[in-house]
């Protein structure tokens, strides 16, 4: 994607409402044809970012650049950007056909062309023959398709999607994810997608932008943000992770849990304090005494494909996902390959996440960072 030109460039965007900073110095470049996902907990400013790009909201400072041109003052109706709203926002007084034709009529297109375009759109979203239906007679999934067709009919350069699948059930959601991705690839237009579902973000996007508290934490490919998270927040928000307090003794040598290990990271200062992320699925369970560390199993949960084991190693509770079975009370060894330890610089999030000591089945949801956030406030 990076070889296509930049279509939208957000430069130092800041916004505050009633004295509270909602977006703090957002810088983001989006390339033509890219599928970018804004990912972050509720209230982190994702919708606000979209509204600035759409032109519904003016930033307090900073610039919005569209294809090299500053569009700060350009009203929404003049921007080549269309939004697919979370709750669809279809016009209840118009039928499906007229909803999709809405933007085309404003462009003063010929009736024949409008008809052809609407038909093509209905086909694209699998709603052939629904043209004369009333909006309230459609299911949620069908309404969502109409909303997609309505936005795409006007040939936007950039489509903004604000949690478009949020109101759908899991099955439909999965189907629509695939469908949206297909549509995006087929038409080759830029999608800026908002979600707080990390799985959705990882599976659909070219680029994931992780946000928290109105600031961008990490911009990268899905593999990047998963494997090389920028800080403890990103590591914890995307997937499960054990985050340990460590010290980088020298290049390729990190110390945590009182031991020194070989790793693949370099470029830190000598004896610099760091956070070390280890994904639960990257840890191997070995017989006691044979691993790098060892501890007592405090909980085992069967998850279908794997077991989720919590192991207490010197009062730090690790989460391990493994196909090997263990029982509570067992002493087991754990082993981690050097390239599966990811060393990160310390950040404001250090120490907040990544220890499973309060973990239990009921707490599963509480380990969601959004909840941790709220508890702190």
């Amino acid at each position, binding site marked *: 994607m990076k070889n296509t030109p930049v279509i939208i460039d957000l430069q130092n965007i800041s916004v505050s409402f009633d004295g509270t900073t909602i977006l703090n110095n957002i810088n983001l470049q989006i390339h033509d044809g890219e599928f970018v996902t804004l990912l972050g907990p509720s209230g982190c400013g994702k919708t606000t970012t979209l509204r600035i790009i*759409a*032109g*519904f909201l003016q930033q307090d400072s900073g610039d919005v650049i569209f294809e090299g041109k500053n569009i700060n003052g350009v*009203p*929404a*109706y003049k921007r080549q*950007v*269309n*939004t697919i*709203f979370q*709750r669809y*926002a*279809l*016009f*209840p*007084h118009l039928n499906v056909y007229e909803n999709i034709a*809405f*933007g085309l009529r*404003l*462009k003063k297109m010929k009736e024949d062309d409008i008809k052809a375009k609407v038909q093509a759109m209905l086909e694209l979203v699998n709603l052939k023959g629904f043209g004369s239906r009333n909006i*309230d007679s459609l299911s949620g999934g069908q309404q969502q398709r109409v909303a997609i067709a*309505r*936005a795409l009919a*006007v040939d936007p350069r950039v489509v903004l999607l604000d949690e478009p699948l949020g109101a759908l059930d899991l099955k439909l959601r999965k189907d629509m994810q695939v469908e949206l991705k297909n549509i995006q690839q087929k038409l080759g237009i830029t999608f800026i997608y908002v979600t707080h579902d990390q799985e959705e973000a990882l599976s659909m996007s070219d680029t994931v932008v992780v946000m928290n508290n109105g600031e961008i934490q990490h911009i990268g490919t899905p593999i990047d943000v998963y494997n090389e998270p920028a800080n403890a927040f990103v590591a914890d928000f995307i997937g499960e992770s054990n985050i340990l307090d460590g010290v980088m003794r020298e290049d390729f040598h990190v110390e945590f849990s009182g031991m020194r290990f070989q790793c693949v990271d370099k470029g830190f200062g000598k004896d610099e304090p760091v956070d070390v992320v280890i994904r639960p699925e990257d840890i191997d369970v070995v017989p006691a005494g044979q691993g790098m560390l060892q501890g007592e199993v405090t909980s085992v949960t069967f998850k279908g494909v794997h077991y989720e084991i919590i192991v207490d190693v010197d009062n730090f509770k690790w989460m391990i996902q493994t196909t090997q079975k263990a029982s509570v009370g067992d002493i087991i060894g754990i082993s981690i390959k050097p390239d599966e330890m990811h060393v990160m610089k310390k950040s404001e999030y250090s120490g907040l996440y990544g220890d499973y000591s309060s973990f239990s089945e009921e707490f599963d949801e509480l380990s969601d960072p959004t909840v941790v956030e709220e508890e702190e406030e």
Partner: protein
Amino acid sequence: MKRSSLAQKIINAPYILWAALFVIAPLIMVLYYALTDSTGAFSLDSVKQIGDYGGTFILSISYGAVATLISLVIAYPFAYFLAHTKANFQRMSVMLVMLPMWMSFLIRTYSWITILGESGVINSALGKIGIGPLPLLNNGGAVILGMVYNFLPYMILPLYTIMAKMDVRLIEAAQDLGCGKLQVIRKVVFPLSVPGIASGITMVFVPCVSTFYITQKLGGGQVNLIGDVIEAQFQTANNYNLGAALSLVLMVMILICLGVLNYFTDSDDEVNGGVLV
């Protein structure tokens, strides 16, 4: 639901009684008087006389229509802008709109005499700069003014309610698809506010057509509408039968109007859900 039907009946009883006493009984009385003569014998004389009042009916409808139209033209933009102001300001403004409604209708109307009269507020002010006195009172214009003034809140409130409830994202969606400010109003706000317009029209038109107090106080006998004729039959001519027959026709006309307007209101239940008043 089925099992509670006895309880339901008991609960409903007072309302049914109320309706019978105050809605159905008067209707039957009106019907009775309309179809009898002064001796109480069956007669179609009164009904036949109605034809003589065709002109009055048309005049009443014209006055009602003009007053309703003016109310709509004033209320619509007012409601639109009000619905887009800060919540506090909206609450206060709605209070102010309703405030006159808590005062007696008679006093509100009467007060216009002291404003428009020959020695009223306006004419005495104009007199000081050597103009007038202008004939502001006792004409059709004053009657229309009285109608608009008295019933305007009933136009504003349903319009305001529907606009305040309108989903802003629909407006944003329209802008997003290329609508400028005026086009948003024409293509989205207006069509979605039709049920509110229908309610407003009903609530202004009906009392305008049947009023007699406004015409008497502000029209000074120059404007004779159907309400005046009916009132005269009961109060001075003592011809209850003709009065009842005219009322009946007025009622039927209003019912037809309501039926037509209801068609618009019903067409979109959701939007109309909570129209005030």
